């Protein structure tokens, strides 16, 4: 007899579980060997506490009432719960703090899209280490993790979360219109972006700058190309990225980093450097991260922070695809 489970959830059977467990152990070993201690937090939290971290994801979370009528929510990532944990438990500890996790998180799904409501993420949070050194350390751990799981062709995209908000402000675009432009940028709808920008009272040159910036990705030459487009916001963002790259080079871990000025993450807490991870064997993003220097302040501790998370199941698929392609090559 078949007893259904909700779409977007799944059972894991022994063959897969064995491989996932091995992956889990490999990743946590890398994190631990670099001084990141593993933590666990409850899957259920108070809704108002999670919303403090990121109001924007609040509409996709699962919420329900506890037995005393409290509004509870399932966590939709681990970064916000860890920010909460640090503020509660480590407020007086000398930074930096290095924490890691492998945990399930929950997001609302669109039906019939094969999206997962429950998925596992493995990641690290480095709290109290400012840019660019802290960012470089996080990227170094990320690279070591990708190597350890056999994804040596994976690429890390590095962008800047503040670039477009500041650029649009510089163009004198007010906040409401700015959000419409940012959402086109986030979706990478270049045709729509151009339409949206043309509707605003800015010059053709500024429209072209914005569109061109979003297409700049590659090595260090990208920063020069960006600078040639001009403007204070571009200058600041490229300077920040340049500093991050220099810090990565100092650690010898800049090889697989691709600068990507089109990067825009859709969570509300990012600032400064943002990261995305791709593998040529997989059509989807493996994970991402970046800096969230403002997040901890929302919980009452003023510390800069950065981190990344990889989707465990996607890393597993990529690993399998890579080993298959390896046999063919």
């Amino acid at each position, binding site marked *: 007899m078949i007893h259904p489970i909700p779409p977007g959830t799944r059972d894991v059977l022994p063959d897969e579980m064995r491989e996932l467990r091995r992956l889990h152990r490999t990743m946590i070993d890398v994190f631990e060997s670099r001084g990141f201690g593993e933590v666990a937090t409850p899957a259920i939290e108070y809704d108002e506490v999670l919303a403090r971290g990121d109001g924007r994801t609040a509409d996709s979370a699962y919420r329900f009432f506890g037995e005393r009528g409290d509004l509870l929510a399932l966590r939709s*990532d681990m*970064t916000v719960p860890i920010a909460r944990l640090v503020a509660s438990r480590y407020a007086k500890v000398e930074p930096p703090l290095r924490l890691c996790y492998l945990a399930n998180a929950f*997001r609302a*799904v*669109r039906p019939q*899209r*094969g*999206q*997962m409501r429950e*998925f596992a*993420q493995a*990641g690290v949070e480095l709290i109290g280490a400012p840019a660019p050194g802290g960012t470089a350390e996080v990227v170094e751990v990320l690279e070591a993790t990708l190597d350890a799981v056999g994804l040596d*062709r994976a*690429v890390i*995209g590095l962008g800047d979360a503040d670039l477009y908000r500041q650029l649009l402000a510089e163009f004198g675009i007010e906040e409401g219109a700015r959000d419409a432009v940012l959402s086109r940028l986030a*979706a*990478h*709808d*270049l*045709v*729509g972006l151009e339409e949206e920008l043309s509707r605003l009272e800015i010059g053709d040159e500024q429209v072209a700058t914005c569109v061109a910036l979003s*297409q700049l*990705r*590659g090595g260090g030459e990208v920063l020069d190309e960006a600078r040639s487009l001009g403007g204070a916001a571009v200058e600041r963002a490229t300077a920040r990225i340049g500093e991050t790259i220099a810090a990565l080079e100092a650690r010898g871990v800049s090889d697989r980093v*691709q600068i*990507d000025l089109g990067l825009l*993450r*859709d*969570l509300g807490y990012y600032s400064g450097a943002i990261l*995305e991870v*791709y*593998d*040529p*064997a*997989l*059509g*989807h*993003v493996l*994970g*991402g*991260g970046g800096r969230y220097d403002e997040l901890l302040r929302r919980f009452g501790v003023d510390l800069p922070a950065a*981190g*990344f*998370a990889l*989707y465990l*199941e*996607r890393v597993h*698929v990529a690993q399998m*695809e890579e080993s298959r*392609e390896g046999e063919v090559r």
Partner: protein
Amino acid sequence: MSVEVAGMGHAKSEGPLKLAVPRGALLGETLDALDAIGVDTGEARGDSRSLIFETPGLTLVTMRPSDVPTYVEAGAADLGITGKDVLLEQSDRVVYELLDLGYGRCRMVLAGRKGDESLGEAERRLGMMRIATKYPRVAVRHFEATGRQVEVIEVKGSIELAPLIGLADGIVDLVATGRTLEENDLEVREEILECSARFVANRVAHKLRAAEVDELTARLRETVAS
């Protein structure tokens, strides 16, 4: 961390880029555009029943226009060409829209029977119109945005039939010349949006094969400009 959690895609990274080419109304002009940038479309133009055509530097994969976002999102095709109507109807598919190719121009419209007031009457007396369409999401979004309640009836075949025999008060459909509407005694009541062919890319291919994608985009852009 961010990123939507969708199904797994299995991209292949070696060899020429794979371009999803729409069969049907957009096929001719798509092949013309490819010719214009020097892609050999001879085989694809033949009456071969193959679906995949290897050309130097680009693999053409032909499919229904509505399947293009699916293949491109998953990375099974690196790039694709399809109508804006398809992209809007499947707006939850994550593909990068790089270029308006300019051809395949048509309008998404609300149409009703000529001289027939059932659209207005249904709205006035029943507070609700029945709309038949192949584009339920575009239709729902349009009526929500204009503050009207509708019952959207999804049909797969000739939509013109629906208002003629009383399934619906009106239709939301794509109109190029307007001849089909004319022949079925229907007329345009509202313009919803303009559509044309778009060049789209898989998110990972756009990052990892940046130079090739940019080069192809630039060449296609020139054909649009000329």
